[in-house]
């Protein structure tokens, strides 16, 4: 963001603070401002065209760059003359690089590097030795770079290395060279100190930048953890159920398919005489498919039957922990909602595919015929007998037998509930009832109630809607006043009736 645009008006120089034209009139000011606006590049003039909406992120963490060790000030090549001091203060490698660039006008070669750098580092060669050797090599002489103070120093050092003369001269040379060497050493130490301090400073700021980014990182991770646990929560909840349901459905389809294949294999014309057992269950998976198509999904059914739960949770035998037996339990929807409400349940179904499926859902389910099963039960052992869309499959005599067997198996105070299609709705009675090829005939509510009460049950109640599920409320009943009423009745109703308790009360 540019908030300190450099003053670009010429008057600024003479009166920076009193405002350029202290005497400018409003009209003149406006003319100026507008003229200036016109001279601006279009991007600056039009905020939208400039695409600028807000300041860029200012909080990005910037890592300070470490200083480049090669960026030490070295004498640049190409000058006419140099001083010996130009080369002090450099480290060995940089000194070598600078010496080559200055004296020979080229980069250091491998041989030179190996020879001189090693000599310099071991103390065998001094900077003067190297500069001198380079300067008065054939290559150096050809370039003839001037380095003040190099010649006498170089000559002195050379003299010292000549055997005899050197021995004689040595003390003098040492003395002469000492102050210069000392100065160079001091300079190098000072330069090294400076570099050391810079490095430490940079390390400190790098460290704090890293700490800041770590903190930000930690915050991000904390957030991520939160996100993850939230996601996990989701999976634990709805998704798990969905996955289970999908798996169930796939299993069911696989089973149905293998059964269908087996049936196709068996159903050859010449093998028309099937064994009775196979015959009995040959249509089981077809019926599962039928239920799926016309009765509604598991969820829908569970929703529909949930309204009956309070009618059972209030029963004394249920509270005492006795079992509610659901005949024709199908996929176990009603068993599930009862179990959720802490009611003990058992299911019973003729259809082995259904039994298998309900068992997979964790229910206690028996395969078999309802009437026979109830007759085998010890008397007064059950809290309830229920059946959804069962009674309309039975013949009259079977229905009576079922009611009798249920009455015998129920504990006093227990209850029956049978849901069945409601012929008070003419569409149901005339049409949809007949979808199910195994249906016998529709049962008008009053008929079913009459039969139950005739076989000993009491307080028969026709449950047409939610209101009827509340036992303390009067039954809704059905009193048609116009033709349309016969089409508006709920598609199903249920009969609820009690076996009187020990005191003969219901």
């Amino acid at each position, binding site marked *: *963001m*540019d*908030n*300190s*645009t450099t*003053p670009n*008006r010429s008057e*600024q120089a003479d009166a*920076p*603070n*009193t*405002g*350029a*034209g*202290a*005497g*400018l*009139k*409003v*009209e003149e*000011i*406006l003319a*100026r*401002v*507008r003229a*200036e*606006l016109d001279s*601006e590049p279009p991007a*600056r*003039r*039009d*905020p939208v065209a*400039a695409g*600028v*909406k*807000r*300041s*860029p*992120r*200012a*909080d990005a963490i910037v890592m300070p760059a470490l200083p480049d060790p090669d960026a030490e000030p070295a004498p640049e090549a190409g000058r006419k003359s140099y001083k010996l001091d130009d080369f002090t203060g450099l480290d060995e490698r940089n000194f070598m690089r600078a010496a080559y660039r200055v004296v020979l006008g080229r980069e250091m070669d491998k041989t030179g590097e190996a020879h001189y750098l090693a000599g310099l580092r071991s103390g065998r060669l001094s900077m003067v030795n190297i500069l001198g050797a380079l300067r008065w090599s054939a290559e150096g002489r050809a370039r003839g770079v001037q380095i003040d103070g190099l010649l006498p120093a170089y000559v002195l050092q050379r003299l010292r290395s000549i055997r005899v003369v050197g021995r004689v001269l040595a003390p003098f040379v040492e003395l002469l060279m000492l102050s210069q060497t000392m100065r160079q050493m001091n300079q190098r130490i000072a330069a090294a100190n400076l570099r050391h301090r810079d490095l430490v400073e940079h390390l400190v700021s790098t460290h704090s930048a890293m700490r800041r980014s770590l903190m930000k990182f930690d*915050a991000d991770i*904390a*957030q991520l*953890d*939160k*996100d993850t*646990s*939230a996601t996990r*929560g*989701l999976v634990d*909840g*709805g998704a798990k159920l969905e996955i289970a349901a999908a798996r169930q459905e796939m299993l069911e389809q696989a089973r149905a398919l293998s059964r269908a294949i087996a049936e196709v294999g068996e159903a050859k014309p010449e093998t028309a005489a099937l064994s009775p057992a196979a015959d009995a269950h040959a249509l089981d998976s077809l019926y599962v498919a039928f239920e799926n198509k016309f009765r509604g999904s598991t969820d829908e059914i569970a929703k529909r039957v949930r309204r009956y739960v309070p009618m059972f949770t209030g029963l004394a035998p249920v509270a005492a922990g006795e079992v509610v037996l659901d005949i024709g339990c199908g996929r176990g929807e009603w068993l599930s909602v009862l179990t959720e409400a802490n009611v003990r349940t058992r299911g019973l179904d003729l259809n082995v595919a259904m039994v298998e499926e309900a068992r997979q859902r964790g229910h206690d389910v028996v395969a078999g015929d309802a009437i026979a099963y109830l007759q085998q039960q010890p008397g007064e052992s059950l809290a309830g007998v229920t059946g959804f869309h069962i009674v309309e499959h039975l013949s009259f005599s079977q229905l009576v037998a079922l009611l009798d067997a249920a009455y015998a198996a129920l504990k006093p105070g227990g209850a029956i509930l049978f849901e069945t299609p409601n012929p008070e709705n003419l569409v149901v009675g005339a049409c949809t009832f007949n979808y199910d090829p195994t249906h016998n005939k529709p049962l008008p509510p009053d008929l079913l109630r009459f039969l139950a009460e005739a076989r000993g049950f009491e307080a028969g109640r026709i449950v047409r809607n939610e209101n009827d599920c509340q036992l303390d409320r009067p039954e809704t009943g059905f009193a048609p006043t116009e033709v349309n009423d016969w089409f508006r009745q709920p598609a199903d109703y249920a009969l609820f009736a009690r076996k009187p308790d020990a005191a003969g009360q219901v």
Partner: protein
Amino acid sequence: MRVGVATVYTPGIFGGAEFHAENLIDAIRDAGHMVHRIALPFQYDPPEASGRALELCEKVDFSRYGGGQIDTLICLKFPSYVIGHPNKRVWLLHQHRAAYDLYDTIFGWKRGRATTDAVRKRIIAADNKALGALPTVFTNAGRVSERLKRYNDIDSTPLYHPPPDAGIISSKPALPYIFVPSRLEVLKRQDLLLKALARTKQPIQAIFAGAGSMQRQFEELAKGLELMDRVKFLGAIPRAEMLELYANAAAVFFGPVDEDYGYITLEAMLAHKPVITCTDSGGPLEFVIDGETGVISEPQPADLADALDRLMADPARAAEMGENGYQRYRALDISWNNVVETLLAPQPALATAAGAP
């Protein structure tokens, strides 16, 4: 992160609040998040309609779907903050003012009318419940926080956002005029400035930018006060010209009656200009430090004239105040980055929960 931004809209109207929501959404996207926009319809009229909008929002509940694919829901306006969500933030633009500070004034609902009083009672109850349940409530400005404290006794934190052109406002040396960039309305009180200008010892000049319902009246007033050689009404001008006038001004006048926030203060600060405002101006008082970054005057022509004279007599000091204002803006860290990070930062309680593996 998947962020929801919930607000209400009145079909056919795209005003400051809608613009504000759009800017927030852009900023959240820029910060690398996914944004889901939730906008529910809202009518101001008839008054019962706000009650219905409240009911509508109360029925929207994401918490039963584990947040509904939204990690954090940011709610901006009444009644969007009653929407159910397990991780909700409120950045309150303003409450339903007709039921609060404007209640029983000419701008709000009249006291004693059964229908509106019933709606008002429900609104206050809903606000208390929804806002009171949150660990932190952010508001657009200190004024909004004050009202929330006064009417609902709920503590909140102002969270400032930058004006739309924050990135391109520049500064140039001062030319001798006061810039008055605001719509010409009674509540913006340009007439007060005109009356003060008529009383100053120096011939101080002013440039008014902006149109409004009071333009004719204010121009008449300026004529009557014989100010026409010193003031200029530009009407509505392009944004670029506006910025240029900010950049060249000696000072900016912004003295409305009880403004909530007011971008003008911030724009002036970004242009390194001192701000002249009044003791009852509301929002600007959160930013202007009297004598440091501008001048806070009593809303009387005589007082304001004195203040103008003092400020304009010492251009060096005025420039210094402008610089201080800019530094203050920087120090407050008014940026969309800050807004987004603050809104999306884990709430204190949640942070500890996430910190413990």
